[in-house]
C-alpha cells in the first residue's frame, strides 16, 4: 500500500539516496500538510518522485492534486489563507524552508496548467519572457532559443510567420504548446502539468502526450490527469490520492490490474 513511507530522517543526503525502485528521486516530499483554516487539504503526504519518469497523480476532484503541485513550486505563497508544513526536497534544497531565491527555484520547474494562460504579449515575447528573466539579453541568443523551443513543441512551422502577433490569437491547443515551449525555455528539470489536455481536442491532446513521452528523456514530469487511459499510456509511476491522502502508489501495471484498495478499484471502474 504505502510503498514509500519515509522514516523520520531529516538529512537530505539520506533522503535523496537510491531508493528501492532503483531511481534517484528528484523530488522528495515528507510529512507535507496543507491547511486552509480548519480544512485539512493535504494530510501527511510522503512521496518520492523518480527522475526522468512520468509520475501521474490521480484522484477524484478536490482531493488536493493541484495543491500538491503548487507546493512544489511554492505557488501556495500566493494564497495567504493556506498554511503549509513539512518538507519538500528538490535537488537537495528544502524549498519550503529556504527563502532566498524563490524565482530561481521556480525556474527549475515548468508549469503547465489546466487552461493555457498565454501572457498578454506576442508569441515571441511569451517564449522570450522566461529567457530574459534568466538574465539573457543577447538578441541573437534569445532568437535562437525561441525558435529552438517552438520547434521542440512542434509549433514553429505554424507560427513562424506571425511571431509578433498576440499569443491569444492562437487556438487553445496551440496556446497550450506555446505555454509548454515557454516553460521549457527556462530549462527546468521538472515539468508540473496540471490536467494539461483537459481543454484540448483529441488531436492536440495526442500531440501533448507524444511530447511528454519525448520530453521524459530529459525532464521529470509530474502529470495530473483525470483521463485513466492517458495515465495508462504515459505513467511510469502512479500515485492515487483521495481526500488529501495518498491511498496507493506504484507501477501502473500493478496498480491498475490489482488495485489494493476499494477506493482505487471504485475509481478505476467508475472511470471506465
Amino acid at each position: 500500500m504505502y510503498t514509500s513511507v519515509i522514516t523520520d530522517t531529516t538529512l537530505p543526503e539520506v533522503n535523496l539516496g537510491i531508493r528501492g525502485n532503483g531511481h534517484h528521486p528528484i523530488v522528495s516530499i515528507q510529512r507535507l500538510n496543507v491547511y486552509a483554516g480548519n480544512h485539512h487539504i493535504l494530510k501527511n503526504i510522503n512521496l518520492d518522485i523518480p527522475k526522468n519518469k512520468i509520475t501521474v497523480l490521480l484522484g477524484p476532484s478536490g482531493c488536493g492534486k493541484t495543491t500538491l503541485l503548487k507546493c512544489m513550486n511554492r505557488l501556495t505563497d500566493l494564497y495567504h489563507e493556506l498554511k503549509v508544513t513539512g518538507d519538500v526536497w528538490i535537488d537537495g534544497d528544502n524549498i519550503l524552508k529556504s527563502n532566498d531565491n524563490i524565482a530561481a527555484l521556480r525556474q527549475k520547474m515548468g508549469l503547465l496548467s489546466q487552461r493555457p494562460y498565454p501572457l498578454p504579449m506576442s508569441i515571441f515575447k511569451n517564449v522570450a519572457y522566461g529567457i530574459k528573466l534568466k538574465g539573457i539579453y543577447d538578441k541573437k541568443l534569445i532568437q535562437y532559443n525561441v525558435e529552438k523551443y517552438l520547434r521542440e513543441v512542434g509549433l514553429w512551422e505554424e507560427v513562424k510567420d506571425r511571431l509578433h502577433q498576440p499569443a491569444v490569437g492562437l487556438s487553445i491547443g496551440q496556446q497550450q504548446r506555446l505555454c509548454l515551449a515557454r516553460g521549457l525555455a527556462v530549462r527546468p528539470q521538472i515539468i508540473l502539468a496540471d490536467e494539461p489536455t483537459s481543454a484540448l481536442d483529441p488531436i492536440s491532446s495526442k500531440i501533448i502526450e507524444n511530447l511528454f513521452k519525448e520530453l521524459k528523456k530529459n525532464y521529470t514530469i509530474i502529470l495530473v490527469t483525470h483521463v485513466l487511459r492517458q495515465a495508462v499510456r504515459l505513467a511510469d509511476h502512479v500515485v492515487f490520492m483521495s481526500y488529501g491522502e495518498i491511498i496507493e502508489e506504484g507501477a501502473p501495471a500493478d496498480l491498475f490490474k490489482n488495485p489494493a484498495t476499494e477506493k482505487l478499484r471504485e475509481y478505476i471502474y467508475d472511470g471506465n
Partner: protein
Amino acid sequence: MRVGRIITDRASGFWMILSLSLILLMPVIMGTGLFMKSIPIWEQNSPWQLIFGSDWSPTRGNFGFWPFIASSLYVTILSFVLSVPVCFFAALYLTQYASEKLIRLTYPAIDILAGLPSVIYGVWGILVVVPFISKVVAPVFGSNSSGYSILAGGIVLAIMCIPYILNMLIEVFKTVPSGMKEASLALGASYWESVKHVVVRKSFAGIVSAYGLGIAKAFGETIAVMMVVGNRIQVTVNPLEAGYPLPALIANNYGEMLSIPMYDAALMFAALLLLAIILIINLIFRYLIYKTHIE
C-alpha cells in the same frame, strides 16, 4: 401556450428595442435641442470667434467662450494629473497585495466616498482646501491668492473622482485571471515583475477606459468646482488664480439676466460646447482602447 410565448417573446423584444433606441436617441435629441436654441448666436458670430474669443461682455453682444473652456480644461487636467497615480497604485495595491481583510475594510469607504453628494465635497473644499492654498501654498510662491483658485478646483475634483475611477480600476485588475499571474511567477518572475508585465499589461484597455470615463465625468462636474474655483472670467496659466469653468457659467447664470439679448442663446451654446467636448473626450479614449486592443 405556444402562441402566448411567441407574443411575450415579440413584446419583450419590442420593449427592449424601444428602451435601447430611447437611450441611443437621448444624446441626439439633447444635442439638436441645444443646437436649435443656440442658433441666434451662431448667426451673429463665427464659431471660431465663439470658441477662441476671450472677450466676454454680454451687454455689448460679445461672447468669447475661451476663458470658460480654458478654465474647464485646466481644472480637469489638473485633477486628472493628481488622481491618475493615486488611483493606479491604490487599485494595484488593493487587488494584488492587500489582505482580504483590508479589502473588506476599504470597499465601504470607497463606496461612501463615491456616493457623497458633490456639495459636500464643495463645502470640504471651502473649509480645508481653500484655506490651505491661501495660507500654505500661495505664500511659498509669493502669491496672495485668496485660495479660491483653479488649483483648489483641481484638488477637489481629483478627490471626487478618485473613488469613482478607483472602483473601476479595481474591477479591471480583478478580471486578470490568477492563473496568468501564476504562469509568470512559474517562469521565474518576481511578484512585482508579474504584476507589471502581466496584470498591468493585460488590463491596459480597461485602465484607459476607466480614466476616460473619469475624465469625462470630471469635465462636467459642476457644483463642487464652482464652490472653490473663484468664478472670475479670465484666462490664466497660474493655477493659484481663479477660473470660471463652463458648467459653472451655465449653473450660475441660467434663469437670470434674460433681459440681455442673446444671453439665453449663449448659455445654450455653452451647454452644447460641454456636450461636444465630453463627446470628443469619449471618442479619443474609445480610439485609445481600440488601439490597445489591436496591438
